[in-house]
């Protein structure tokens, strides 16, 4: 089937998509956007988090056909010509990245949290990121990064 979507602001048309393919597969394997990661394939780990029509979603659980006509924003769009997004900078500075596999999903979910909640409390951060699993960091550095990004973004 043919899928027409808007991805990171550009209309993309992809042919011969199998209905059982996930949006994640379409992004990674057909559109050259491998930032979103393929880990659990069950919606449990959050590594594939993208924006779908303005809210975050696990791209692994969106069937190809469901993506038709939708608007997708991936981790690739967080940085712009001026450089990394403050959330990305904070993750780097705080050492919130070890193997890096969960990082793209955490970046998108944190981006969404800080867009909706300027200065989230620690419980709000934990709840917002509950669906993003990290096997390396123990989360402390990730929480540091979210707090740092939130401080910087709120003071701008």
């Amino acid at each position, binding site marked *: 089937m043919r899928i027409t979507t808007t991805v990171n602001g550009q209309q993309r048309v992809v042919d011969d998509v199998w*209905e*059982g393919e996930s949006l994640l597969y379409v992004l990674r394997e057909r559109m050259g956007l491998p930032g979103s990661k393929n880990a659990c394939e*069950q*919606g449990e780990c959050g590594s594939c988090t993208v924006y779908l029509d303005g809210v975050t979603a696990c791209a692994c*659980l*969106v069937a190809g056909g*469901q993506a038709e006509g939708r608007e997708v924003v991936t981790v690739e769009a967080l940085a712009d010509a001026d450089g990394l997004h403050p959330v990305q900078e904070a993750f780097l500075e705080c050492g919130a990245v070890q193997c890096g596999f969960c990082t793209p999903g955490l970046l998108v979910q944190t981006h969404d949290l800080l867009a909706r909640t300027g200065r989230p409390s620690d419980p709000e951060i934990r709840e917002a990121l509950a*669906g993003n699993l990290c096997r390396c960091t123990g989360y402390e550095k990730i929480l540091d990064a979210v707090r740092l990004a939130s401080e910087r973004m709120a003071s701008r």
Partner: protein
Amino acid sequence: MKPFRYARPGGVAEAVRSGAEQPGSRFLAGGTNLVDLMKLGVERPDLVVDVGGLGLDEIVVDSGGGLRIGANVRNSDLAVHPAVRRELPMLSQALLSGASGQLRNQATAAGNLLQRTRCVYFQDVSKPCNKREPGSGCPARQGDHRNLAVLGGSAACIATHPSDFAVALAAADAEVAVTGPAGERTLRLDELYLLPGEHPERETSLAPGDLITAIVVPPLPFGTTSAYRKVRDRASYAFAVASVAAAIDVTDGVVRDVRIALGAVAPKPWRAHRAEDALRGLEPTASAFRAAVEAELSVAEPLPDNAFKLPLTANVVVSVLSDLTGASR
């Protein structure tokens, strides 16, 4: 994943027709508990009917405070709707206690009701499961049953219903509006959900082609005094090991009316009618709450590793009702 045909109907009637004409079809809405099960091979539909484009995504509040929730309303949108938070806080709390932010953003109201059990044997196609493969057997009684049912189960199946939202809806006397091949009808939740008996593969009274179009919640004047409390193995993003939805009306010092539903203890949201009947007319005290819930749980059939759910559930009921009424524990 098994290959399937994919249909994107233009309206409810077409969706119903498509669903009815193909045995083994599935309606696809948010996808958060169909796509995953298709990947596991637990769900193997020949036809997937995508109802995501049908609208059915409005929340209508009537003048009495009742709600009509479109089937495709997203869990996250419903949870923060001002009328839901005001009139029935237990609904909002139940929704927010389920899944993760990403999943709540996609999961729909009707899909939440029709999600499948998380029993480990059901989800593992290498194991027997009477629900997935009728007649294949059930290893749970001798095996991993810590999270499984203590009420309403059968020799064939003790799987629990995983929804939080459905527990709060059961306490609120909600109904589902269904459009099927024979027309429209409404079903109370206790008519929608079936206990397993000898046929755990039949979970609901919905027939092929029956599409839930809305959830109808009647006005509940004391719904403002309601709460949902969920006990789980970690603070967020886990299924309940016990949960309670309750609403209570105390007038002139006695319980005039009360609604209690229990989650994670049965194959369906368990409305605690026996406990409710025991409480009406009594003073709202912790000891009255405990006696009422113990009456409800007296018919339970626990197994060695899930017997803890009985005192846990009783404690949560006492705690929720005490908090709602200000009774000292």
